[in-house]
């Protein structure tokens, strides 16, 4: 498939980038940032909301550091997967990074692009011809949802692997834009439906992900449902972070990806003080299955995906206690 035409901008500094973004915004010109391009470009080929301008991050210096507190937005997924610092402190993050797509894509894809990954759906990730013949949906070019027709929001599935782990680690993201810099807890960043996805201005650049030092006490794990062991988006992925207090749960954080339009942190699942036993693992499993919703727009039937989120949470809990 052939890319549509767009103007490519190649800023070398953040100041230059912000200026380009400001100018384009002032001119009413739509644009996308592109880091690795492993999500942007396939979508453009399918004519999924292509913009006339693309601002590439390829020539920016820096923003690619990987440390225990801070990860630059341009850090490669493959570098996360191989990082000894991360594997020492946050093995769950490394596991998640390792499970992203395939080696060549991990070598291009960045953590920033991964967090901001577009949502996926049978009726959206298709060629222009396919979508036109079916009738466009509201996520691109149309005005109805083909999955849940009676609703006016989009249920496309969030399919990034890193977000759930960063949610349980209570990470924050730093955004830089024409209106300055701000930091947002990831737990408040994702919002609404498969079209809106998050609270980020179109001109805002994600520069860094910060992990609070309080998260270092947590043991983390990640497990995803997929048909094959590679080149597979999660269609249900569970991240768990656990701190045990003796033989009791001190702190337990749970987040899920691949189920709804945004990755979800289940802050209300309070198992603090419960014994770290298989019975608690089963309670967690049940509570999670109760809360998870899936739609029929990616591989595997919703019921199975739901069941597996619970199952994986139980297995992860036991492994982290182990």
């Amino acid at each position, binding site marked *: 498939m052939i890319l549509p035409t767009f103007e490519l901008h190649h800023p070398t500094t953040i100041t230059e980038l912000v200026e380009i973004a400001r100018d384009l915004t002032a001119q009413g010109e739509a644009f996308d940032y592109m880091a690795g391009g492993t999500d942007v470009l396939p979508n453009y080929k399918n004519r999924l909301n292509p913009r006339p301008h693309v601002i590439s991050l390829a020539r920016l210096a820096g923003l690619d550091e990987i440390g225990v507190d801070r990860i630059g937005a341009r850090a490669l997924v493959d570098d996360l997967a191989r990082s000894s610092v991360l594997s020492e402190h946050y093995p769950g993050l490394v596991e998640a990074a390792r499970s992203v797509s395939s080696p060549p894509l991990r070598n291009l894809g960045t953590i920033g692009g991964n967090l901001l990954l577009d949502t996926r759906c049978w009726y959206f990730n298709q060629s222009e011809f396919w979508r036109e013949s079916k009738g466009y949906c509201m996520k691109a070019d149309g005005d109805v949802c083909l999955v849940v027709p009676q609703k006016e929001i989009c249920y496309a599935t969030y399919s990034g692997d890193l977000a759930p782990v960063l949610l349980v680690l209570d990470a924050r993201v730093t955004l830089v834009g024409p209106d300055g810099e701000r930091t947002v807890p990831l737990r408040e960043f994702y919002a609404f439906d498969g079209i809106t996805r998050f609270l980020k201005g179109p001109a805002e650049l994600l520069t860094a992900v910060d992990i609070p030092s309080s998260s270092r006490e947590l043991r983390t794990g990640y497990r995803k449902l997929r*048909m094959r062991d590679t080149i597979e988006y999660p269609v249900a992925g569970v991240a768990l972070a656990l701190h045990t207090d003796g033989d009791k749960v001190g702190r337990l954080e749970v987040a899920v990806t691949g189920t709804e339009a945004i990755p979800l942190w289940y802050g209300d699942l309070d198992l603090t003080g419960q014994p770290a036993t298989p019975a608690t693992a089963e309670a967690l499993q049940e509570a999670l299955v109760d809360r998870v919703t899936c739609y029929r727009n990616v591989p595997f039937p919703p019921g199975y995906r739901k069941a597996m989120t619970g199952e994986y949470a139980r297995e992860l809990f036991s492994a982290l206690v182990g």
Partner: protein
Amino acid sequence: MTDTRYIGSHRARPDAADKVTGKVRYIHDISKPGMLYGKIKRSEHAHARIVSIDTTRAERLPGVCAVITGYNTPPVAVGFLRDNSALKRDKVRHFRDEVAAVAAIDPDIAAAAIDLIEVEYEPLPCVFDPLEALEPGAPLVHEQDARGTSVTSNLVPMECGHDSGDVEAARRAAAHIVEGDYSVPLIQQSCLGTAGCIAEFDGNDNLTITAKTQIPFLAQRDFNRALGEMGLRGRNSRVIVPALGGAFGSGLDTHCYEFIAILLAHRTGRPVKILVDREEEFASLSPRQSARVKIAQGCDAQGRLLFRDIEVVQDNGAYASWGATFPTVMLLPVTSLYRVPNVRFTSCIVYTNNTYCQAMRGYGNPEVTWAIDSNLDDLADAAGIDALEMRRINCNEPGEVTPMQMKISTCGLRECLDKTAEHLDWSEKRGAGSGPGQTRTGVGMASLIHVGGSGRIYRSDASGLTVKLDDFGNVNVFYGGVEMGQGLHAVLTMAVADSFGVLPEHVHINQTDTATCPWDVGTHASRGAFMSCNAAILAAEKVRARIFSACEELFPAEIDRALTKLRRDDPELGVPDFDFAAASRADNFELRDSEVFLRDGPDVPWARVPLGRILRAMHFRRDGEMLTESVFYDPPSDLPDWKKGIGNMSACYTYGVQGVEVEVDEDTGEVAIKKLVSALDVGKVLNPPALRGQVYGGIAQGIGYALYEEVKTEQGRILNPNFTDYKLPTACEMDFPIVLEFIETDEPVGPFGAKGAGEPGLVPTAPAIANAIQDAIGVRIRDLPITPEKILAALAKRG
């Protein structure tokens, strides 16, 4: 024939260097001066009347050279039942039916022009389920047959069945009977190299088409017929086959896009190239059809099979291609896998508004073997007999004549069963059950029979081969079969080297081209090596006889010349006391590694004459000759009576067994393969690495069929027309030990004793896996692919 020094040895393939260095030219890499790019406008409806087509805007787009529809071109019928047409008139019958096409100076303009064509449709009621399509009052996909006669049902007019012995009586006599309803999904051949062609006409209106095909000569016949329909009766088409990036059956028929390229090339007077993209490949290049298989098998108290009763309903999709003839190959396992005296087989193929289907590796065989070998395990269970023992009891034997009248010459099934059981640790592991934690382990096996000596499904099942020897001792081979990655050229090089007695470096297999190669029915039915090597052996006999007869005169003179030259350098040269002139009789000569010598002559270097020297001597003497020979090998087999399902369709039969050890997670339903054993009776191993490659590849496809692959459709529309969502197994899914055993039964009609082995690799994989899953967790999955949610659902039912 000389002894074999290349056959059976490890040698690099002749096409390897070009492939690994990227020098090979696939259809995508080829262009011609002045070439235009064609693009097809396809239907957006599964079933609709075409009300109007407006091409005016497309025609006005600069760079567009032609816009054609079914209304401004002569009708060109497509398919062996002539029920399809290159460009549709009146109505479309599935998504992506071809309604118009453009030729433009570049692909972007062609794509833009396609978007400017406006087609108005009036949607018609659709039918997607073959059983619903058979019900009275179902929408008719075709209201008329090719002759214009009205039809009243969606049945494809293809009759294939079998009824031998007395199934009803055997049913009554059986001590144990097990029935089951099985299904297999729509799957894709998934060639890495997508399809395409370039069509061009010369000034005399003769066509040359470079096309991705496995059947150059049947394609020539189809294209010539199309030329006739275009008012060019008597003109010829020349089919040239470029390097292929896989075919797996997708090149077994001619396709609408090829006829459209021909129409566009004729309209514009310029070469026109059409490439099929991945999505088009999924939707319009004819995958392997889905089918439902209803089976009953019964045995006596000792486990001897008494009968087999099978009904197949196959979804044909909107038009008939070779997929509609799958039951002809289903007959093979249905009547002849294991000894079974009473067999009934009925098949029905139904038109629907789904994408239409055609050939894929195994051609109907995996679909029914899935049911037969899964059901056999259940029957063994019912009879209280071990599944391996059950197979031994009913094992085919050499010399057997099966209910289909297939004459089994060599048969290594028993050895295959034993080897598989041994490598799988069957006696230890079968029924042993538990694995770590919530996992359970199990072992299972399944067998296969397939045509080993080509499969006669056409009036001629022959292969021609021409050789042209030159002054330098080269053997140029012209063979009409197709190298599509399977290693045909490698094995043919070895076979020529061994049967002629020349060095493999001197063997050159030329591009497949209907203008230069003799006729061949096509590269299918695992026939490439069997046919081409047998043809090579025939050609070798002729060529060697001519060389040896010429040597009666030429050889003594060549020796004299050599000796004179040697004596000049070394007057002391000792010469054995041997009368070359007297010994030079045709039957005394031998040719080996491109040197001619006397079998009982002295073993000294000067008594061997390079073949090139002899060939030059033959050329440059008075009444000189150049050596070319042509042979036409037709295997000893019969064209079956398909309605009765009787006939010895192949010259010999290949047998095999696969065994699998699995680990099933009872909490998630996930299946992990721990080990796979494949034992295959191939007659003789011709090219060890290529054979292993064929079997490994087949196993990968078999695993895809068993666990992952399914073209998902919704109202006829394919939901996953790409390799992100269509789940081909990857290297990760193949990460387990595979044990290969080859049984060499030395087949008398096989070249060097070999039988065909191209397709069998994938035939028994799915039932072997299902049987292992059943052994592990006690549930029987009958619908492919075996996904974890199906396993969990079955476990929930089991309780």
